[in-house]
């Protein structure tokens, strides 16, 4: 019997125009500024207004396994946003903390999503994903539905969706131009 997949951090993931870099405490200011943005932050779990809490959170993240938190960068190393893979449950994972800067290229959302799913499904060997989407975040819900995610229920705050590797393979065909080659993973 094979054991369930686990979430491992990676130093770097390289895509077509983007790279993911493992978060360090040096990123606290960048993450804090994104999360405190009133427009972007309203769809996220509440962020402490004290940056020291952000630093502590990242220190804890660095010292613990079970999640991978990345800075999304362009090819020049300019930070464009964040993305996180967490909450492994059997062969399913969750992702979130997905925030993109306003001036990120229009292709960033799709390429970063494809890179994240590629890492989770093809490298970490998950088969499914479970997603919590804020009920008031219509654009993100539509995005996940276009990816192929399906509604499975709700909580007071969130709509719950699921996704699987078969839907990802379908999505890869529809969006091949954003990530035509496999991602490169540096552990």
């Amino acid at each position: 019997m094979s054991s369930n997949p686990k979430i491992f951090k990676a130093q770097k993931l390289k895509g077509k125009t983007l790279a993911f870099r493992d978060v360090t405490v040096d990123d606290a200011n960048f993450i804090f500024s994104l999360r405190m943005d009133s427009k972007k932050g309203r769809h996220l779990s509440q962020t402490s207004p004290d940056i020291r809490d952000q630093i502590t959170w990242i220190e804890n993240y660095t010292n613990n396994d079970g999640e991978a938190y990345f800075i999304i960068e362009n090819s020049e190393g300019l930070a464009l946003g964040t993305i996180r893979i967490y909450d492994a449950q059997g062969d399913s994972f969750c992702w979130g903390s997905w925030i993109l800067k306003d001036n990120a290229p229009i292709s960033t959302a799709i390429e970063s999503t494809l890179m994240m799913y590629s890492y989770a499904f093809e490298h970490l060997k998950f088969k499914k994903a479970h997603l919590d989407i804020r009920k008031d975040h219509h654009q993100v819900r539509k995005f996940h539905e276009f990816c192929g995610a399906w509604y499975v229920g709700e909580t007071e705050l969130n709509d719950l969706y699921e996704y699987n590797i078969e839907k990802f393979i379908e999505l890869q065909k529809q969006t091949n131009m954003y990530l035509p080659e496999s991602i490169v993973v540096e552990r």
Partner: protein
Amino acid sequence: MLNILQSDVISTIEVALELQPGALTKESRADEFEQWDSLGVLGVLVALDKLFDGKVGKISEMAAVESVEEILIVLRQHSLID
């Protein structure tokens, strides 16, 4: 050629972006519509790929289009519309 008209392409983009019929013209640009942001672009792409029977996903230039006109030009270059 799949016999799909320019107007079919524009209608498909409108539906994907949940815009009113007639909201888009050939001259419309992504940055003019709140819905046509980095999230909305996936809907446009998936809808066009379905309209053209899986042929759009293979066109590398589609990753860079930011207007209706640019989409129509790329589709024409690939002989998907007249």
